[in-house]
């Protein structure tokens, strides 16, 4: 049975792909049927994933002994590109996370897309995304991962731009694709260097070859490769400085934000680093870079989230910040903590996004939290779910985030105190801005013109399921021994560091209290605070002007340089071509003078020729005479 599940794991990405093809070709215009096909495909994938999980838990598969299946995709000369399935506990966990969230989001979308005529297209793209993401998760080599990595990127592009008639959506989609493309460029270079150095991209083969190579030739070259590879995750997982696309990506429909831009695609970068951990963990410089970029991103994004007003944008910066946590965990050497946080974050962040979708829909597309208020009376279920999400992300025991965040803080404290302090400060800010979001939107007085109402059942039940997961997944992982299951090198031990956990819980409650004082009790005026810290507030509110900086770079190095080169093409290159043509034309003018059809002209030319000939013969004869004279 367990063998059967593993050998059929390729069905997991294939089923949604089939759903995409069928919906795309045949049922696009039939909403009900399209929804049914998409949801049943992902449900089946979910079931197969469960079987795979069972097989992994019960069987001989471990992190060091994965199940592998491969098939040739294309071959040219000595180069073979293959596709396949690699199942280890990390894969199994990811499969469950992705299929669960995808299934719940698709059910939710049935309600969300109720009045949208483009629902068929929406479900087709969602299925394509699920398929690509699952294909990425089970990759056996870097090329397969890169291929699916690009595919999830394009699905993200298509779905961010789903409301294609909105200019903002269209621009956000473009920006997301191009920004992540910059990361992919670096990653592709890294992959190509691996290919020419080792002659293979297979994870298992590289796992054997890379340590030997480093042992013989040192870390120098591999550090370059590692850094190049890491540029990909910087783009995909929204790390500084390529994070700019993720907040804009909120232009997409909210289920998309929940699935792609919170729970699954954006963690692909984290997953890639985890999958290639045998490379990264052997390179101290790269690990340091990962840890610091992760830590800095976590802190940086949190400082922005504190001042933002739109509901989804706060969540987006929060996602960037949490992804930074995951990177930080990888950088300080704890694959377990990173993957654990990836799982819990997927559940509670998807939960919060789906709540956001319900709220924004209920508010008739009003996204500014300061125009909401008192929603807990109007939307009690959503309020409860959102509260659970906030408690989970803030790390209140026994909610999921507590366990995973504690593990990351403990891992960071072991390696470097500055990183730990950065992470702890981020935790404090996280608790603050999440409490701010909750208090401002859901507490206080109900506004008179507030149109909000509780959501329909398609949208409600996924929230409840995710809320349960957001409560339980942390404790389950902790007590069931997540660390003995997903680990790198030696199994991680499960224990709670009470100093770290205790201090972070205390900080969390201080942050909650502060937010309560400001936004509910209104003991301090938030306006005055923002005035007091004018410059800091402005920097944060304007996201440190990173976007503006990129606009300048793009204007100069792309548009202006392009215009200059085009000028060169028109004036110089084409100028030469046209000049040459004109030159030939002039030459022909000269010769046409000689042949203009008039007998007199011909006679004159003839006469000139004769003179020239005679002159030449005389000259020639003279030369000969001279030569003869010289000879005698």
């Amino acid at each position: 049975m367990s063998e059967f599940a593993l050998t059929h794991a390729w069905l997991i990405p294939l089923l949604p792909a089939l759903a995409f093809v069928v919906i795309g070709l045949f049922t696009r215009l039939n909403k009900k049927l399209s929804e049914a096909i998409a949801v049943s495909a992902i449900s089946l994938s979910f079931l197969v994933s469960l079987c795979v999980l069972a097989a992994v838990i019960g069987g001989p598969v471990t992190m060091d002994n994965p199940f592998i299946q491969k098939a040739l995709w294309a071959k040219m000369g000595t180069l073979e590109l293959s596709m396949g399935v690699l199942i280890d506990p990390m894969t199994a966990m990811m499969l469950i996370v992705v299929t669960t969230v995808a299934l719940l989001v698709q059910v939710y979308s049935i309600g969300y897309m109720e009045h949208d005529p483009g629902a068929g297209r929406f479900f087709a793209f969602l299925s394509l995304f699920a398929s690509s993401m699952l294909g990425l998760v089970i990759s056996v080599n870097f090329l397969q991962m890169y291929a699916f990595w690009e595919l999830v990127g394009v699905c993200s592009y298509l779905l961010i731009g789903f409301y294609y008639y909105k200019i903002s959506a269209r621009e956000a989609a473009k920006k997301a694709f191009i920004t992540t493309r910059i990361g992919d460029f670096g990653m592709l270079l890294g992959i190509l260097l691996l290919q020419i150095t080792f002659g293979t991209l297979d994870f298992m083969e590289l796992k054997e070859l890379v340590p030997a190579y480093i042992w013989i030739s040192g870390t120098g070259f591999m550090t370059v490769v590692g850094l190049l590879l890491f540029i990909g995750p910087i783009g995909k997982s929204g790390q500084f400085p390529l994070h700019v696309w993720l907040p804009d990506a909120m232009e997409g429909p909210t289920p998309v934000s929940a699935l792609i831009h919170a729970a699954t695609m954006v963690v692909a970068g984290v997953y890639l680093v985890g999958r290639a951990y045998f490379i990264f963990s052997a390179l101290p410089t790269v690990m340091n870079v990962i840890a610091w970029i992760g830590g800095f991103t976590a802190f940086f994004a949190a400082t922005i989230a504190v001042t933002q007003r739109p509901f989804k944008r706060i969540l987006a910066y929060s996602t960037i910040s949490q992804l930074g946590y995951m990177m930080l965990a990888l950088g300080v050497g704890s694959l377990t903590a990173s993957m654990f946080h990836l799982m819990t974050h997927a559940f509670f962040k998807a939960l919060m996004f789906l709540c956001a979708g319900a709220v924004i829909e209920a508010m008739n597309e009003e996204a500014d939290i300061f125009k909401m208020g008192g929603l807990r009376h109007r939307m009690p279920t959503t309020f409860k779910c959102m509260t659970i999400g906030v408690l989970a992300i803030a790390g209140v025991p026994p909610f999921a985030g507590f366990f995973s965040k504690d593990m990351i803080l403990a891992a960071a404290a072991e390696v470097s105190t500055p990183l730990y302090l950065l992470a702890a400060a981020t935790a404090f800010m996280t608790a603050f801005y999440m409490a701010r979001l909750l208090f401002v939107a859901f507490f206080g007085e109900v506004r008179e013109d507030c149109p909000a109402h509780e959501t329909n059942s398609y949208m409600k039940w996924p929230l409840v399921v995710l809320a349960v997961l957001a409560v339980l997944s942390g404790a389950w992982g902790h007590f069931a021994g997540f660390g003995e299951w997903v680990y790198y090198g030696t199994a991680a031990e499960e224990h709670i560091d009470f100093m770290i956990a205790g201090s972070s819980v205390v900080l969390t409650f201080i942050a909650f209290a502060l937010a309560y004082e400001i936004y509910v009790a209104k003991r301090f005026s938030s306006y005055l605070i923002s005035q007091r810290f004018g410059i800091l507030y402005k920097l944060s509110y304007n996201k440190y002007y990173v976007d503006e900086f990129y606009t300048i770079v793009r204007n100069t190095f792309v548009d202006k340089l392009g215009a200059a080169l085009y000028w060169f093409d028109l004036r110089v290159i084409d100028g030469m071509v046209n000049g040459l043509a004109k030159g030939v034309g002039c030459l022909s003018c000269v010769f046409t003078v000689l042949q203009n059809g008039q007998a007199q002209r011909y006679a004159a030319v003839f006469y000139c020729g004769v003179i020239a000939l005679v002159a030449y013969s005389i000259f020639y004869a003279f030369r000969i005479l001279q030569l003869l004279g010289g000879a005698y």
Partner: protein
Amino acid sequence: MGFPILSTVLLAPLLMALVICFLPRESREQIRMLAAASMGVATCLTLYAYAAYDTAAGGMQFTERIPWVTDLGVSYSLGVDGISLPMLLLTDVIGLASVFSSWNIEKRAKEFFILLLVLITGVTGTFIACDLFIFLLCYEVVVIPIYIMVLIWGSTKRVSKEYSGMKLTIFLLMGSAFMLVGIVSLYLGAYPAGQRTFDIEALIMASQMGHMSMEFQILVFLLLLAGFGSLLSMFPFHSWSPDGYAGAPTAVSMIHAGVLKKIGGYGLIRLGLMVLPLGAKFWAPLIAGLAMINVMYAAYCAMVQKDLKYIIGYSSVSHMGYVLLGFAALNVVSISGAIANMVAHGIMASLFFSQIGYVYEKTHMRSIPDLKGLAHYFPRVTIGFMLAGLASVGLPGLIEFVPEVTIFMGTIGVYPFFAVLAIAGIVFTALYILRMLAKVLFGPKDEHFAQYEDQKGVEVLPLLLLGVFLIGFGVFPELLMSVIDSGVQPLTPLLAALSDVPTLLGGGL
């Protein structure tokens, strides 16, 4: 010798052109049906040949040979191997699609289809000829219809159609002049008088037996590079490409960008590399450098274009840079990638041109500031644009991904500097393609476009036909790569022997 498949593929369009000559000009309906039928026959036979080609055996198959001018060593000799078969398939598929794209042509339809079929015959001939005389003959056949078609059915935008037609023709002729000198030198240099032949296999034999000195090869390769390079729009001989495509009618743009250009790459491999390996090796670093310029420079130029056809024109110059780069790296992987990339680019460029052509036919607009929000009224055209655009960007699952990655893998070890810059092209390609798609297809509704109809009936066929190959070869690249591999694999010893031959930068020996 069984049924002469290749002759039928070659002559079906030509014979049909002859038949159409005798039809009255009013019977437009029959003329276009007959044109489509002849191309349909050719395509079906090519598909059969493609399926029946024995990749394990490799080499020239479906050969036909009739001695023609024995004194000069000229024979009517046809055949396909793993390198020319994909090109033949490309020619017929795009040829068929271009007939459908010209379905609604009103002006002088009879003459149009006659010239189109002659053009396709010429292109087909260059790919399946095993004799250089036939190759040149077919190449010259191509030039005339293109000039007439641009002049009569072309369009005037930035430059007049007369200018672009002239530019296109003169570049083609200049290329053929260099080619002619190069080919005649080969003919004279390979064998002593009396044994001389235009047979390509025999020339390759002569080269392997050492009949051609290093100096000879270097000189003649330069001639061929000038000829084939300008055909492939190699920098700085590229400026005909955007102007030419912009002036040409849709079908000519499709065939020119889709297949005609590829004669350059095909010739470089078939003659440049196989007959003159030492010359190829000598000039390879130069080609690699120019290739990198092609990729980046043309991408930058594409970025600032306003006319859709100019964008695709510069885009095709940029993509040809990858082909040149794959050629210059001179190894099995990179050359397979270069050939596959020619197929890939042919399919997507012709898809682009057919969709642009449709939009232009309906709206008489091609300028990006004029076009907006087409997705609201042209859903099928949108699919065509998106497929071609995402393929250009190198999306996995579409035809361009595997060829691009293959070229990168084959070149980064040989020319790291040029390769890295050329790979950076993937970012810039994404930039100009996505900008164009966003502006033209998406955004708010514009009521002006409500009056036009989306593609329907025969008009959808180019999208369908090219789309099938775009996705089919993308999802199952082995369908394409196995055939190409059987053509490139035999070059392994040749390429291995080249590894210590000096280049213009010195080295070797």
